[in-house]
């Protein structure tokens, strides 16, 4: 049931994010979508991925807010879209705080349920039984042993992006006055 709840949040957040004509609501809905996806990961026993998803999702939303303020889109009530938004704005405004509250309540409830059953699960893992989640040690070992090439390619790609991003986003040099002094 709780997975269904988070699935609903993810879909609702994605829909609002994609089709809202206001960039503020789009960014907040994207954040809710990321939080809901992290809740889904937590419900399936992937704590590391859940926390990573929450952290990165929040950082992405904050970055989007910074850039939309810089480009002047944040103050606009309506951002350009190919078609008009058919979702009444009052519904979006009223439902977004509830959506955020529901996400946090769901995450809290899920965390509580997992803490309550944590002792039994740990015992089962120590006996060599079913693995409910993947611990960080196993994750790191598999990452390095089986996906080392992918890791190196990703690292190289990140380096190229840092350099290329700096080149692309360079400020324009001021044009010199050719008419002389």
């Amino acid at each position, binding site marked *: 049931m709780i997975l269904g709840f988070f699935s609903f949040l993810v879909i609702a957040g*994605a829909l609002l994010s*994609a089709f809202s004509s206001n960039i503020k609501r789009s960014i907040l809905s*994207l954040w809710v979508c990321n939080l809901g996806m992290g809740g889904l990961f937590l419900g399936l026993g992937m704590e590391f991925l859940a926390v990573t998803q929450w952290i990165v999702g929040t950082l992405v939303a904050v970055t*989007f807010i910074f*850039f939309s303020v810089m480009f002047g889109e944040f103050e606009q009530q309506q951002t350009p879209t190919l078609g008009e938004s058919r979702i009444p704005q009052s519904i979006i405004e009223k439902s977004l705080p509830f959506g955020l509250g529901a996400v946090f309540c769901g995450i809290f409830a899920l965390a509580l349920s997992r803490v309550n059953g944590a002792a039994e699960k740990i015992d089962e893992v120590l006996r060599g039984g079913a693995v409910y989640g993947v611990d960080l040690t196993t994750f790191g070992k*598999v*990452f390095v042993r089986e996906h080392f090439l992918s890791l190196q390619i*990703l690292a190289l790609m*990140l380096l190229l992006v840092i350099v290329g991003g700096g080149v*692309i986003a360079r400020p324009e040099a001021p044009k010199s006055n050719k008419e002389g002094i």
Partner: protein
Amino acid sequence: MILILPGLIGGIGLACIIFRKTLLGVLIGAQLLFLGAVAAVIFAGFISGRQVSGQVSGVLIFLSGIVQLVLGFALAIRMFYLRRRISMSELRTLRQ
């Protein structure tokens, strides 16, 4: 059944990329697309019993999405420097 969810998210992201006229809106759609891809790989690993491989692949795709986002922001800054706008129709004028 659980794989329908990533498909839906990816489809919504694709629709957002087509629907939006500004670069920031397209980047939001691209983020949704990457989120769907990450979820698909992770859920497929969960269903097939290969959780670790699925999670590792999901993290790799996740980080690739971050890379794409950084490049998108760099391009948006460049467009803003040149045209003072980040409309998608202005992209084709960058070659001038």
